[in-house]
């Protein structure tokens, strides 16, 4: 699969791997402490001491950007995992058992999808309050219907296949069929949805932090950093340009990767984002 990738895709993949690496190994890197404030050094433009400059409280922007990758990727992964853990079994059951399970499924999904865009996530954080785990929950709720719908559609079509009939004839109980036969076959579409949803999840997480209802302000998260830098951005644009640019790069690479997976794994699926 690696040899078929164009240069763009290879580049995107390496960027994502790089981001993951600095997210994991961030604390061990020889950069400043992202939380260390030093007002005397506040609002410096990029220099040899501080490659990305400093923010309004004197914190090194480079280390904050690196630390930010942890949080953003954490939110992205967390939300996708929530969607997978809850949405996929739900969708598969609705697709396999049908009838009343499916009816309940349709109602629940309708309700989850009734809220446009970030309104759902906003509603959740309005109730639970700010914080990383609440943020993951809020964004995760948004991914559940997407995964659930795709799993259901796939399960519906796979259910008709001969090997499922054969398994049933052999007395295989439904839960085993779902786990051993149907699930391995839907991994492909799930990976596509997963990468695209991760981009969306990171975006929504950053948006909520930007609006002030996500993580708390000392926590280095790209969206929050953008919000903090807003009052100073006229004279110190680097406060806003740096985190925004990294955010854009992260999302772009994830989108490219998702598109590539979609082209490779199954172009006949019209998998549009819900």
């Amino acid at each position: 699969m690696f040899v078929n990738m164009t240069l763009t895709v290879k580049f995107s993949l390496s960027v994502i791997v790089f981001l993951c690496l600095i997210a994991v190994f961030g604390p061990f890197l020889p950069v400043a402490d992202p939380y260390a404030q030093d007002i005397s050094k506040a609002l410096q433009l990029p220099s040899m001491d501080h490659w990305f400059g400093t923010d309004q409280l004197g914190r090194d922007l480079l280390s904050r950007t690196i630390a930010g990758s942890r949080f953003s990727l954490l939110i992205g992964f967390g939300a996708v995992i929530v969607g997978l853990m809850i949405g996929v079994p739900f969708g598969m059951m609705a697709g396999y058992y049908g009838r009343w399970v499916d009816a309940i499924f349709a109602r629940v999904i309708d309700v989850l999808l009734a809220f446009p865009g970030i309104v759902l996530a906003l509603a959740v954080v309005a109730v639970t309050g700010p914080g990383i785990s609440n943020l993951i929950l809020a964004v995760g709720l948004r991914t559940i219907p997407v995964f659930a719908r795709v799993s259901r559609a796939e399960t519906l079509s796979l259910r008709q296949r001969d090997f499922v009939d054969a398994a049933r004839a052999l007395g295989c109980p439904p839960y085993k069929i779902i786990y051993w036969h149907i699930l391995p076959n839907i991994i492909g579409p799930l990976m596509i949805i997963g990468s695209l949803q991760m981009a969306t999840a990171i975006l929504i997480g950053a948006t909520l932090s930007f609006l002030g209802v996500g993580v708390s302000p000392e926590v280095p998260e790209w969206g929050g950093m953008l919000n903090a830098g807003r009052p100073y951005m006229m004279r110190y644009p680097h406060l806003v340009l740096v985190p925004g640019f990294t955010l854009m790069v992260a999302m772009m690479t994830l989108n490219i990767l998702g598109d590539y997976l979609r082209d490779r794994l199954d172009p006949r699926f019209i998998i549009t984002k819900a």
Partner: protein
Amino acid sequence: MILSYLLKRLFYLLPTLFILSLIVFTLVRLIPGDPVFAIAGLDATPEILEEIRTALGLDRPLLTQYIQYLGGLLVGNLGTSFRTYQPVWVEIWHRLPSTLELATAGILVSLLLGITLGIIAAIRPGSWMDASTRFVSLLGVSSPTFWTGLLFVLAFGYYLPLFPIAGSGDLRHLVLPAMTVSLTSLAFITRLTRSSLIEVFTQDYIRTARAKGVPPGRVIVHHALQNALVVPLTVAGLEFGRLISGVIVIETIFARPGIGKLLIDAIQFRDWPVIQGLILTFALMFAIVNLTVDIIYSMLDPRIRLN
């Protein structure tokens, strides 16, 4: 025929709305912290707190509160804001025009520009025009709205002051926010128009038209576009619904007095009635837009209706 489809869809809308109101009601009651403190201040005496509680009806059992709420909804009474003591629907009503203005401008821009760019990309697939439009649309899809908004503020508000960056009022105030909010949809519509148009170009009747000597411009506009535009137009309808939520961020950046900003303020102030009312409003607007798109789509494609 269309009428029965419409009625059926409306009918299915009702239980969803009902469950929505229930969820919104419970959601807001789950918030930790007593809202009376937010109104009265932390050092208020217990008597004042009790007074406020009774006045707002928060001391009744939960079921009674919900039935009251539901009854109010049916009449159109969404409660009173904790913050400004105005009726919630008045607050929303005052701010709705600004938001609708922005959303409409956004969808128009993304449609006009998106279709144009899609056409440009499709007539010469693989060229640098195609590649550059594809790149721009990729940027559009992956750029966070708040970032592009801030970039626009920097670029056109500060370095090259052409357009106002705050408030609302006339058309000039709309330019920057509309451009920001339309970016993602624009990218999406461009992609769809391009792929849809490329597919239509492979059809026989296009070949016939070209063989007949129809000038290329007319081939595109008169023959190909009608069929190619079905998918992008339906998507545009759905995007309108998404735009409605996108304006939340835009209004905060460009300081426009719309319902998006109202929601953020309400959340920060824990203004329950406004939060409830706004969530319902957003969901209702979204549902209406989706319903309209479905109706239009079913008018265009009889197969959907007969399903």
